[in-house]
């Protein structure tokens, strides 16, 4: 009954927005609109749908009572090969998305018909890790912003796809690349670099949205004389990794950006980089105007298992507390006070063997037997982590955090490897610990108040799909077998599914055009949109 009530209120808000002439078509996407994105749930204007990272849509036309009747509305074939990891944006009836190999495109969000297509020529010697992927765009003013595999940041005219400006952020030949969806904050385009597999020195950049001029850079590995530099042995900081390849979140009240970082390099060999290796595998709170560090929290110290902490940090306010929550690749769910970076709780939400103790701050610490050896050691989670880049969702109606999880253990082996610029730099190999131990994949609903896994749905095999929750009492996610699935948010029982014919590596969104709600997701090499008949 309570849920029906809140649904009605939400419907009313949507209706008012939709009836009030909506917003003029192709209106400028201002910073104010991004801050107040909840007021226009028909649009999906940032990677996570809002600045808080909740990936929650206020739309409820599609809900638990009618989800079973969803149908495919259109399919857009990108003709790209490999994995589509994009989260589309939708603004005023136009859908903007990316695909492999530096592609971007704009579609009529009602029909899936393209308006423009852009592809940047790729040099033959780029060094992308893990596929030639891209996770999406940022939009601000009348431009969309793309990070490229050859480490450029590019502004495109949102109406034409023409290049407005193009900046080379770093040298792609030594392993820098961008796969992340940038985040537009005020008049800045914030973007983090990939390349932890090549021993780059990680950074987060902010560019002037009008001109492309770089306004600040925060190196995630401190240089000589900077605090934290002492956490690196010798010159290891120069190739220390700590990339920043997933989109962070933003708190307008404090003007702080929360951006997560990845593994130290080489990823699976700690020898030669003794110390905590700050700010690898950390959550950074940065002043949005200056890029100055306000606080940091390191999830995994001196990581030797490739457990990037690059999962979306979700801003949640609960019980009068200003929190930030992250389901980490290392298998623990962390709740942190976002005013000061202090840990509130850390609870395992999947199979973990690497830690059986916590430090004075409550942070899980690694045990000795987790450290890789030449012969190899079995550790859970494996190198792919309990979760990875797949976007989570937080539903303010159920107060639950939904995340794609995997139970898999690996044998971690380590071996010395000299650094060579532009060459892969792992210092390791890892193998599935597979005998009679199948990999398990789940969608899990975690209660941030207790860390308890309240509901779970077991997939046939582990999936790389992100998660969306909606005011319709629904959670959407995809699977490795190509299904797009609608779940009841209150139980994770599947209510509907559609076979898309390709594995899902992307995260869903919801939007509305002409008062009709759609849910969209990429699978295989296509983008799909679904709606009511």
């Amino acid at each position, binding site marked *: 009954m309570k849920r029906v009530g809140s649904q009605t209120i939400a419907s009313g808000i949507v209706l008012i927005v939709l009836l009030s002439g909506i917003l003029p078509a192709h209106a400028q996407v201002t910073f104010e609109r991004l801050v107040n994105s909840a007021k226009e749930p028909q649009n999906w204007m940032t990677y996570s749908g809002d600045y808080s990272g909740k990936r929650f849509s206020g739309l409820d036309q599609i809900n638990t009572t009618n989800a079973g009747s969803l149908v495919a509305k259109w399919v857009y074939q990108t003709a790209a090969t490999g*994995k589509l990891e994009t989260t589309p944006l939708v603004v005023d009836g136009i859908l903007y998305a990316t695909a492999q190999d530096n592609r971007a495109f704009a579609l009529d969000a009602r029909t899936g018909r393209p308006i423009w297509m852009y592809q940047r020529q790729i040099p033959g010697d780029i060094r992308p890790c893990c596929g030639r992927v891209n996770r999406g765009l940022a939009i601000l003013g009348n431009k969309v912003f793309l990070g490229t595999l050859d480490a450029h940041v590019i502004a495109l005219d949102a109406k034409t796809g023409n290049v407005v400006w193009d900046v080379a952020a770093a040298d792609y030949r030594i392993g820098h690349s961008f796969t992340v969806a940038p985040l537009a904050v005020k008049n800045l385009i914030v973007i983090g670099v990939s390349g932890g597999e090549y021993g780059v020195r990680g950074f987060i950049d902010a560019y002037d949205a009008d001109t492309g001029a770089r306004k600040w850079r925060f190196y995630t590995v401190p240089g000589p004389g900077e605090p934290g530099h002492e956490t690196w042995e010798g010159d290891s900081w120069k190739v220390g990794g700590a990339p920043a390849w997933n989109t962070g979140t933003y708190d307008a009240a404090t003007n702080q950006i929360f951006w997560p970082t990845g593994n130290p390099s080489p990823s699976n060999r700690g020898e030669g980089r003794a110390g905590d290796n700050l700010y690898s595998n950390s959550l950074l709170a940065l002043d949005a105007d200056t890029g100055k560090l306000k606080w940091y929290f390191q999830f995994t110290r001196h990581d030797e298992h490739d457990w990037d902490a690059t999962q979306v940090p979700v801003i949640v306010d609960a019980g009068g507390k200003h929190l930030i929550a992250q389901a980490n690749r290392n298998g623990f769910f962390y709740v942190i006070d976002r005013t000061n970076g202090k840990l509130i709780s850390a609870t395992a939400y999947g199979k973990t063997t690497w830690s059986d103790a916590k430090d004075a701050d409550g942070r899980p610490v690694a045990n000795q037997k987790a450290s890789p050896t030449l012969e190899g050691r079995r550790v859970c989670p494996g190198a792919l982590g309990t979760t990875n880049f797949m976007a989570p969702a937080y539903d303010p109606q159920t107060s639950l955090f939904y995340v794609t999880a995997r139970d898999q253990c690996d044998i971690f082996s380590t071996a010395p490897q000299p650094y060579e610029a532009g060459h892969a730099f792992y210092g390791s190999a890892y193998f599935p610990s597979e005998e009679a131990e199948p990999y398990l994949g789940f969608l899990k609903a975690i209660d941030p108040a207790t860390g308890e896994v309240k509901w779970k749905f077991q997939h046939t095999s582990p999936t790389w799909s992100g998660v969306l929750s909606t005011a319709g009492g629904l959670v959407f996610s995809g699977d490795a077998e190509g299904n797009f699935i609608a779940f009841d948010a209150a139980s994770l029982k599947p209510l509907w599914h559609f076979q898309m014919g390709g594995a899902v590596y992307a995260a869903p969104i919801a939007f509305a055009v002409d008062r009709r709600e759609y849910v969209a997701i990429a699978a295989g090499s296509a983008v799909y949109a679904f709606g009511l008949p």
Partner: protein
Amino acid sequence: MFRRLCVGFVGLLLLGTAAYTADDRNPLAGDAKAAKAGEYEFRINCALCHGLGARGGGRGPDLTRAQKKHAHSDADVFQVISNGIAGTAMPANGTNGQGVGMTDEEIWQIITYIRSQEVKAAAGPMGKAARGKDLFYGDANCSLCHMVEGKGGRLGPDLTGVGGSRTREAIIDSVRNPSRRLAWGLTEATKEFPQEYESVTAVTADGKEIKGVTLNEDSFSVQIMDVNEQIHLLEKDKLRSFQKSRESAMPKYDAAVLSDKDLEDIVAFLISVGAK
């Protein structure tokens, strides 16, 4: 000084070679330093399936054999690493999320490393292939479920190529302990891992029991081949029950059922076919 010039000249030559004849032969062939670099690359990119030392990891073939199933010349191997092998779990370079995209130079380094690990004078099969063939199609009952060169059953994996792609030890292990590592079946283009040969028992709404192996499965449907080689395409929510097991449908052939000597003969037969 002269030496440095010389090295520079050789370097230019190599670059030229790599640029113009990349499809023909390995510009780094026999280079010990390249083989070492290739060993690092191999650990990162290949060892997950092909095992440390390229000896085969149960998932991928043993690459230390001079005779390879899908590639013979260095140029063939280069193509296989670059583009993968359609219909198998071998992915194209840089597409699968395991390891990183390799440059042409790194691929040649890996090929140099693989060649350095090859056992040139591989010990011939220890058993007798002709007798193994008789056993395979006869008393050992292998062909009731397995096909070789178009002859035999369909319930288990086709073994025509297994002798060319798996180590002798891996074949023996999968006969002695078929459940330890279930065989891989269907591979889908962007899916992370292929379907395994899991055993299933499904009971339909009208009470009919179907026992067999999964050809494919997702959360909502399953495609089964039963023990009579009939294909059943089922929706899970319409079944009375559905149970999977990682106990292989293949019986465990211990030494009491199949002697070491008989097994060696069968392996010799499979290797003789697979090496064709």
